């Protein structure tokens, strides 16, 4: 995985990361670096300016976030920190400008801090993620669970287990940080040779896939174990036991203080561990961030491969293409040339065609002009006299705009109201107020007659041979008709404006069910 050469950092003398010691704002710089070290102790991979701001002690905290950003940028310049574009999506203009970078310790900056704090840890780290570490963490957490189940956990075993967990975890977090740093460089192709990249890309993608898989399966298991340990404060007992054992070596006058300090340190580490695997307080867990980053890296890497291939195949760099076009537009002699360039380069123009109407088409189909007819002698397209005179006409063919249908809707509503009123009147007209004869219905207006025919049809549909009486309800359930055949053979006539309706006479009763008082 170690395919990247170290980035040149700071001034050529190589002591850039110590430059802040002589700068006027030294206290602020030291505090900022301290914040990163504390964060590192809690296994945080990177910090946003807001995080640093919150972590600064009140004595050195600048009044504005801008002060911290300034300090961060200065430290980036000296090589203590590195800034990566913050690729999280934002929704407000201000955020876009503010959230530009996330910061992390550079190896140089960390080395400087380590030297300054008299810690002596190795500088060389490989930018790889040890999926094995995840397995170890599971094992250690299980051991802790066993210990927590005991009445009085063995302090020595507890301390050892916690220590093992912390060191395994420290390695994982360090590697994660280095890995993400080098991944970003790889993706940006900042200082990676093309050959190196292509040689490693398959390995890298395989590695990423395996890691993501482990992180998903083991990460979930680890999160469950952590929750289990935290249940009922069991972990707290273990942390206190470990702290007590650590403080045992302290001198008597330091004893109480040392135990408390050790406990706080352990609690901090535990909180960091939990934050790595559990999303809490609205902050995403580091594991999830890392997973997202690693997942996102796969398509990004593939894109790099594609762009490398395109570069090799002689395809041009798009940004350079657009800059070239900008120059061509500027150099073009006149507007016409520019329009031609636009049309040719972008190809976004619509097709353009003359129109023809259906009648002309039909006429041509019936009597086609020979292909050798000049336009002037051929049958023309006829233009509406109205259009020729006034410049407007009822458009034929498809309307091009969404029509305003307010007017039509209002008319429809009016028609609907009118029809409802007519039907109501027709129904009222038909209701017979008891049994009457068909011949006694008298004259019906067209609407009532139509309704009557429907009812009669509904009733007659139920006639079976031999029946003399039927009851039917209209299709819409609003009216009932009772019809009885008469034996006297008399005929009935119903007068309508359209003519006379004749048939054998019946007794008839029509009831409006919709009125609710069907007893009538």
């Amino acid at each position: 995985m170690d395919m990247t050469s170290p980035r040149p950092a700071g001034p050529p003398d190589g002591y850039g990361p110590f430059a802040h010691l002589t700068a006027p704002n030294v206290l602020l710089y030291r505090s900022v670096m301290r914040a990163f070290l504390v964060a590192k102790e809690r296994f945080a991979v990177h910090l946003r300016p807001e995080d640093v701001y919150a972590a600064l002690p009140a004595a050195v905290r600048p009044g504005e976030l801008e002060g911290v950003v300034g300090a961060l940028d200065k430290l980036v310049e000296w090589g203590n920190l590195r800034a990566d574009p913050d690729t999280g999506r934002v929704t407000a203009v201000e955020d876009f400008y503010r959230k530009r970078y996330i910061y992390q310790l550079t190896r140089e900056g960390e080395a400087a801090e380590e030297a300054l704090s008299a810690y002596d840890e190795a500088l060389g780290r490989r930018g790889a993620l040890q999926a094995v570490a995840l397995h170890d963490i599971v094992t250690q957490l299980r051991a802790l669970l066993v210990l927590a189940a005991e009445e009085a956990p063995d302090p020595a075993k507890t301390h050892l287990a916690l220590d093992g967990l912390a060191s395994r975890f420290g390695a994982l977090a360090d590697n994660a940080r280095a890995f993400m740093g080098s991944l970003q460089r790889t993706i940006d192709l900042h200082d990676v040779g093309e050959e190196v990249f292509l040689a490693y890309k398959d390995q890298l993608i395989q590695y990423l896939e395996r890691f993501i898989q482990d992180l998903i399966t083991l990460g979930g298991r680890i999160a469950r174990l952590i929750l289990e340990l935290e249940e009922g404060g069991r972990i707290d007992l273990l942390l206190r036991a470990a702290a007590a054992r650590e403080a045992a070596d302290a001198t008597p006058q330091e004893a109480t203080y040392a135990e408390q300090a050790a406990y706080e340190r352990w609690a901090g580490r535990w909180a960091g561990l939990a934050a790595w695997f559990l999303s809490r307080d609205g902050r995403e867990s580091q594991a999830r961030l890392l997973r997202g980053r690693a997942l996102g890296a796969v398509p990004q890497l593939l894109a790099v491969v594609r762009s490398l291939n395109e570069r090799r195949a002689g395809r041009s760099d798009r940004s350079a293409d657009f800059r070239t076009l900008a120059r061509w537009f500027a150099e073009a002699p006149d507007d016409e040339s520019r329009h031609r360039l636009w049309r040719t380069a972008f190809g976004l123009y619509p097709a353009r065609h003359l129109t023809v109407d259906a009648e002309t088409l039909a006429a041509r189909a019936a009597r086609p002009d020979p292909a050798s007819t000049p336009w002037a002698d051929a049958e023309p397209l006829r233009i509406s006299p109205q259009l020729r005179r006034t410049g407007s006409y009822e458009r034929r063919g498809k309307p091009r705009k969404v029509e305003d249908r307010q007017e039509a809707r209002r008319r429809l509503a009016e028609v609907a109201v009118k029809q409802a009123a007519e039907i109501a009147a027709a129904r009222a007209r038909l209701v017979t107020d008891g049994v009457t004869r068909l011949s006694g219905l008298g004259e019906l207006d067209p609407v009532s007659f139509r309704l009557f025919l429907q009812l009669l049809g509904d009733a007659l549909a139920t006639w079976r041979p031999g029946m003399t009486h039927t009851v039917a309800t209209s299709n819409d359930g609003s009216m009932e008709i009772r019809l009885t055949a008469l034996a006297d053979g008399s005929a009935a006539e119903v007068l309508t404006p359209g003519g006379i309706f004749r048939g054998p006479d019946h007794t008839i009763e029509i009831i409006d069910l919709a009125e609710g008082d069907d007893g009538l």
Partner: protein
Amino acid sequence: MSTPLAEVLDGQHAAELRKAARALLKQPLLLAGGAYADEFRLVRRHASDLREWFDRNTGWSLQVDAETARLGKIPAHLADATHSAREATRSAAPFTRRRYVLLCLALAALERGEAQIALGRLADQVVLDAADPQLAATGIQFTLDRRDERLDLAAVVRLLLGLGVLRRVAGDEEAYVSGAGDVLYDVERRVLAGLLATRRGPSTIRAATLDERLVGLTAETALDSDELRFRAMRRSLTRRLLDDPVLYYDELTDAELGYLTRQRGFLTARITELTGLVAEVRAEGIAMVDPDDDLTDLRMPESGTHGHVTLLLAEYLTRAEGPVVSTADLERRVAGLAAEHGGFWAKSAREPGAEGELVEQAVSRLAALGLVARTPDGVVPRPALARYAVGETVVLEPRTVGTAQVPAQRKAHQR
């Protein structure tokens, strides 16, 4: 007897394919969201048929993914200056030199940039890029601190919003123009990636003149066999028939004309099958006319003041004596027409001095539709202009009631 199901499905398939093809010809870049979502779905469904058709007949590539469909149109002839980039507002003013340059610089910045951009930041990068010595040598420069410059940038951004390259997240351009605010956009990289439709990247072309550059952008690979030459001719002719209102024979080379004469029926039938356009074949050329009056950005005849003036001037031009009609003639004619028809026109068109603008609009439209040609001296009618007019003798025939009502001097005909 009912129609067999297979036949119904075939018919539906053909209708969908036609709708999709027309949508692409009208709008070579379609997005999954927005006004053309239905058309996009059709294009996506029939992508393989369409891709094959366009590749075989025009050599245009069709790229379709989940978000965008892009028909990589390459024009068959490079002289057409009537398709400009236009402002996305009602005025639809053609882009100026500054706007075209700004557009390209903005695209260059977006291409390098990240998934989001603020307008203010974009402006900064444009100003930086504009300082490039080669560009500065052309005498163009941007500071983007004056209001009119900001207006130019806003017009460019609105064009990109319309194309779907940018999507507005927060803020609005008005605020930026007035200097009171900023705007945040998401950059749609897939749309951006498909924006250039050229055969070769402009940055790989070393030509010095515009014409050579245009040829370079569209150059085909070497045509070293008869078969390739014929294929190139078929594609070029089909492109013209698909894109342009009228294909005049006198614009073709002898080889092209020979090929077109032999293959005319085949070429036009293939286009009709796909698009529903109908060939109007005449002695002077071919127009693929549209019965749906929809596959176009300009119409003739068209209602409204400008459409009306265009129609009346077209009528005047068909009657004109001599090959060239001067612009001054046309303006005099418009002044005369205003007395007769002005009552139907927009108020601004009746004001004295509006003639120049009216003539310009009308001539632009007629030229864009291939009905007239412009020369330094004025306007030359082209043969297809006659498709809207008939000879006097025919007018005087009392064929319909409508004809009788029309004054005898009218040439443009009524239905």
